Structures are given as structure tokens and as C-alpha cells.
């Protein structure tokens, strides 16, 4: 590991119930990086993210972290219990669960929460229930929780899963702004065109790393077919790669209205 890496995963293999879900994976994240991990369902994206986080220990290989590196983690919003009785302020303050024993928040903590909410464009929502927010605001609450401890590296699992196009744009811009301020960001995503094609560095994963590099290098028909196991074409639009399913007689399922 070079001194400038925040986290470096080398040759990592993870096994669940004798089933290898990640094989010989490498990933290095440095300050200011913005990395997208793409791949089909079951390809090991979340597992690789959790290896970087330190929540999963690989059966083989090494994970090296910079000393005292601070990492923030934003889970998939689908895993959140939105009906739990909790306000935005209470949720963000969970980031301090390990530090302070007294249940009540200090004035400085309340000020920090207000600042991070303001930075993310959801100021003044501290007393709202988390369910009483729009999809984009909900995602920002959990980003706020991850940012409260001023991490150097932010890990997000499927940040745009289940959100509309406008919210996806907003979240991508927000992450881009945070990254421009020096925060290293690693996201997993299914969204090749909406998210992955916009990122500076991609890791194509299907249990093993198929390819990694800038989108224009790794979003190729060959890499995508090896990653997803399905034929895809890559077009160019406005200087950016656009991935499309390859239309052929063999993989198009035609649905016809049944004759009356």
C-alpha cells in the first residue's frame, strides 16, 4: 500500500457458507477518489463495499487502512425501517452513539447536526419524522448521519436505487460536490448510464474484478458481456458512453396483445 491510499484491498476472497462471493478482488481508494462498483445482482458489490468498510473480513487476501481513517457508511434505503419512531435529528445523531453516554444532545452536537443538514440542503427538518420526507431528502438524512463524524471516505450502497430521475440527478450532484471538497466516495450501483458513466473510476465486478478504470475504458461490449453475462452495445452520446441492451432476435421477448 502506498502512503496515499485510504484503504487498499488486495487479492481479497470472501466466502459465505462455502460459496465464494468475492474472488481475488483488488481495490485501492485514495483521497479525492470517486469510485463506482458495478455488476449484476449477486456479483459481490455490497460484499466488496463491506470489505472496504471492515464489516466483512476476507478469508484470503489483505485489507490495509490508513491510520485513523474515518469512514462513513450509507446503507441501502430499502433496508431502512421508515416507520420507526425517529426524527431526522435523532437519526443523524446516531453517528455519535459510540462517543457520548448521556442521552441528551449537547448544544454543539445540535449545532453540528444543523450545519450538516444545511450543507445537504435539508436545513430545519430536525423535528420531522423520517418518513415525512421526499425520497431525495430521506437519502440525504442518511448521508448526513454518515457525514456527521467528518469522514475521509464515504461508502454508499445503491444510493439511487428506487429513486426517480430528478432525485438521482440531485444525489449525483451532491456526491460530486462532496467529492470536490476532498471526500473520497465509493458507491455501488446498478445504474450504468445514470450513475456509473458519470464517475471517474469504475470497477466491473462479477465475483472477481473483470476490469477497472475510467468509464470510457471499461464500459466496452466485451467487459460488459463478461460482467453481466448478456450482450450489450456501447454507443457514444455527448462524449459519454451509453450502454444499451443488444437487440437481437434471440434476446428480445415480444409481448403481444392477445387477440380478442
Amino acid at each position: 500500500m502506498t502512503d496515499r491510499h485510504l484503504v487498499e484491498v488486495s487479492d481479497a476472497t470472501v466466502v459465505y457458507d462455502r460459496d465464494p462471493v468475492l474472488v481475488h478482488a483488488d481495490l485501492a481508494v485514495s483521497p479525492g477518489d470517486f469510485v463506482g462498483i458495478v455488476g449484476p445482482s449477486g456479483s459481490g458489490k455490497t460484499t466488496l463495499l463491506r470489505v472496504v468498510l471492515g464489516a466483512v473480513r476476507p478469508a484470503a487476501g489483505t485489507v490495509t487502512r490508513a491510520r485513523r481513517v474515518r469512514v462513513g457508511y450509507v446503507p441501502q434505503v430499502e433496508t431502512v425501517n421508515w416507520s420507526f419512531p425517529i426524527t431526522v435529528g435523532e437519526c443523524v445523531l446516531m453517528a455519535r452513539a459510540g462517543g457520548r453516554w448521556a442521552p441528551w444532545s449537547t448544544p454543539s452536537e445540535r449545532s453540528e447536526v444543523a450545519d450538516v443538514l444545511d450543507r445537504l440542503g435539508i436545513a430545519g427538518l430536525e423535528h420531522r419524522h423520517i418518513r415525512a420526507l421526499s425520497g431525495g431528502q430521506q437519502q440525504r438524512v442518511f448521508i448526513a448521519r454518515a457525514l456527521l463524524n467528518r469522514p475521509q471516505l464515504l461508502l454508499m450502497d445503491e444510493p439511487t436505487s428506487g429513486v426517480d430521475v430528478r432525485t438521482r440527478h440531485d444525489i449525483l450532484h451532491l456526491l460530486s460536490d462532496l467529492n470536490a471538497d476532498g471526500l473520497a466516495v465509493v458507491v455501488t450501483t446498478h445504474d450504468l448510464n445514470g450513475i456509473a458513466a458519470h464517475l471517474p473510476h469504475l470497477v466491473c465486478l462479477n465475483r472477481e474484478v473483470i476490469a477497472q478504470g475510467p468509464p470510457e475504458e471499461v464500459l466496452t461490449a466485451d467487459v460488459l458481456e463478461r460482467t453481466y453475462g448478456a450482450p450489450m452495445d456501447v454507443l457514444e452520446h455527448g462524449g459519454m458512453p451509453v450502454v444499451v441492451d443488444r437487440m437481437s432476435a434471440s434476446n428480445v421477448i415480444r409481448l403481444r396483445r392477445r387477440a380478442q
Partner: protein
Amino acid sequence: MTGAMAWGDLVHPFHFQFFRNGLLVATIAGALCGLIGVYVVLRGMSYIGHGLSHAIFGGFAASGLVGVNFFLGAGVWGLASALMVSAVTRRKSIGSDAAIGVITTASFALGLALIQLYGSPGRNPDAALFGNVLGVASQDVWIVVGVSVFAVAVIVLRYRALLFTTFDPEVAEVSGINTARVDALLMLVLAASILATMSVMGVTLIAAAIVVPAVVARMLTDSFARMLWLSTAIGAVCGFVGMNLSYHLDIASGPTIVLTGSALFAAVFAATGLRGMSRLRGTRRGLEPLHLS
């Protein structure tokens, strides 16, 4: 003067030391059950109060047989059962409802078998099953007070870790919280609370005393902190009112305390309507396990 007569009837039992003891214990026990109930309900473990009280009944029989102090024997038994439930649930292949069903009913069955084989220990099994607050001894008062102080101390000092672990155990774990230790601590508080309040509520009804105040509180608020103190207050009111009803109606204290809570639930349910019901959808840990792809 019908009003004066009615007032006189109401305050009459307060002249008796045994009633004042019982009222104090019922009120504190109600508050304690309400406080713990918030975590039980939000973790989707509502059945655990029912299960653990039955498991402790097994300990009640075993402690009499072995000849150790009832509270020590039943307490260790209850804690062991709670930790087993927690450990089985953490493996995720078995849900908490099934784990509670298997472990605590096995413990209850063992208690029944021991009583059939060797006879009942010194304490009255009926009182253990249905609650008999009028027979509360001063030792019982101190036990309920002591466990309540312990429970409040744990919840105040570990408030943030308990909240994070209850809301989002996966992320709490990766954020550096020892969730296994937090879960074990909660099980210890729960087992101690059930043991201490069993003489008031009875084995069969303690689950309702734990669940009802938390459910009523959830219908009234969207804030976790407010739910915590509301549930505690509602539990205390149910204990106080139920205990008075127990004396005046000559019914065991367990049923009157639970029926008071049930009446309050019906009133709040009617008053809050659909809004209260929509909040109730959150009274379970509705999290799917984090799928690792």
C-alpha cells in the same frame, strides 16, 4: 352525600399499609414494563415478555427444587433463556418469534414437569401465574425499586447505543457498536424486569403490561425520546388505576392492570384514528437483513 361516600370508598384502601405497598409496586412495575416495552415492541419481540415470563416460571420450579433463592434461581434461568433467544435470533436463519416459541415454552414445560414430579416450591403458583399484588412484601417493593433504578441507569447510560442497535443493527455494528453486548444488556434488563414485576402482573399477563403502553405511546408520537417517556408514564398510570380497580372489584391485579391498558389503547385508537394506525406499522423491526450481493 353520595359524592362524599364515593370519595370515602375510593380513599379507604389507602389506610392499609398492604394496599399502599401494593399500589407503589404496581405503579413502579407498570412504569418499568412501559419503559422496557418500547425496545421490546420496536424490535418486533412483543412475544418475548410472554415467553420469558413462562421461562421464568420454569426457573421458579427449579429454584424451589434445588433450594436456591427464588429470585436468584429464576433470574439466572430467565436471563439464560433471554440470551439464548437473542443468540438464536442473531443467526438470522430463525426469526425471533420462532426462537422465543421454542426456547421459552421448553423452559415452561420443564417447570411444569418439575412441579408435577416434585411438587410446588414454597411460593404460590397461582400468584405467580395471575399476580397477587395484595400479598406484596416489603422485600418485593425494594426489588422492584432496585430493578427499576438499574433499568433506568442502563437506558440512560446506553441510550444512544440501544437506539442505534434497535433501529439499524447492521449499521450500528459497522459503526463500532458492540451490538451483541448491547442486545445482551437489554436481555438482562428485560429478564430482571419480568422477574421483579411477576408478582404484580403474573406470568400470564406480563406480556400485555410490556406491550400495551409502548403501542399506545407509539400511536401518540413519532419521536423515539417522547415514546420512551410516554410509554413509561402510561405504564405507571395503568399500574396505579389497575391496582385500585383490583381492590374495588376484588379481581387479581394482573387482569385489572392489563384491562386498564387495553381500555386506554381503545380510547387512543379511536381518538387518533388512521394517523395512529399508520404509526403502529412501525412497531416492529421491519428491516430485511442486509443482502450481500
